[in-house]
């Protein structure tokens, strides 16, 4: 009964969705705020990667909010699972081959993550991606070593400092210029590593923050005893 109703309702919704998107041809050029961003990003922010410029500069305040949401989710997870943490993990350690390989891969993965968020304004990638990649690196170690531990203190410090950096940079922009997160550093030449003003600083901070938070989430989930 429930399934029939659900299928009926979803069929109606799906039909109308399809109808709507028939009227919205695929792959055609659309004018909008995107056009402005594409034409002015390099001039205004000095970042080669327009997506990065939007995330960090044009919609930087939004990103601060999203980072906060992420932080709240990580904290909330900790609160939900509070009191269920135990050091006793029944995971068996992996075989020697896996252990050795992950030992060799781990620094490289972390390095890749760092590379991704340091070059966020030049190449695809940035703080969010780099942070996620670092977290996968940590995950690799979690899976292969029984006693691999991350220090919660360190995670908290990294997270707080990164968040503080973000807010401080924004406030300096407010103090020196007119708006929160206004650029106050020289833009440099596009496609240089040191360019685009405050964008790399913020994206690096975001990278640290996201990496630390996702690691914290994983740690919280893994350390929960059944």
């Amino acid at each position: 009964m429930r399934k029939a109703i659900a299928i009926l309702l979803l069929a109606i919704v799906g039909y109308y969705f399809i109808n709507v998107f028939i009227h919205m041809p695929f792959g055609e050029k659309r004018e909008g705020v995107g056009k402005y961003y594409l034409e002015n990003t390099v001039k205004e922010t000095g970042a080669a990667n327009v997506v990065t410029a939007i995330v960090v500069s044009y919609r930087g305040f939004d990103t601060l909010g999203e980072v906060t949401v992420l932080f709240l989710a990580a904290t909330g997870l900790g609160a939900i699972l509070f009191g269920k943490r135990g050091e006793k993990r029944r995971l068996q350690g992996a075989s020697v081959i896996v252990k050795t390989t992950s030992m060799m891969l781990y620094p490289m993965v972390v390095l890749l993550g760092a590379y991704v968020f340091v070059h966020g304004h030049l190449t695809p990638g940035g703080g969010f991606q780099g942070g996620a990649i670092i977290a996968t690196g940590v995950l690799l170690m979690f899976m292969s070593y029984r006693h691999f531990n991350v220090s919660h203190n360190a995670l908290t410090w990294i997270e707080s400092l990164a968040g503080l950096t973000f807010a401080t940079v924004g406030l300096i922009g407010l103090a020196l210029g007119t708006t929160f997160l206004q650029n106050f550093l020289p833009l440099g030449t596009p496609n240089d590593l040191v360019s685009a003003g405050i964008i790399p600083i913020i994206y690096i901070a975001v990278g640290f923050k996201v990496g630390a938070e996702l690691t914290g989430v994983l740690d919280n989930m893994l350390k929960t005893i059944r």
Partner: protein
Amino acid sequence: MLYYIGAISLILIGMYAVLTKKNLLKIVVGLSIVDSGVNLLFISVGYVKDATAPIFSMPSLTADKMVDPVPQALVLTAIVIGLATTAVALGLVIRLYDHHKTLNINKIRQLKW
């Protein structure tokens, strides 16, 4: 067009799981499928035929031959937030399982009167 159909099917399949499945974890799986579908829909709306990614890595690239960067920026953060919310949902599921020793929502009757 194919992308649209794929995205809409993902959304509908996910919704179907949310609406009919009795297992809490399955519902969370359904939610994450809806999430993927919405992300795909966004990105495909922003696509422009024969355009490049919105990155000025070479001087030969011009602004009118690039895809719309705004949906990409939105989806970028949406994915990360999606992971965080999924994690919170799973934490709640673990807690509920702890309390009721079951994942079947028909047997978890705490909200009922």
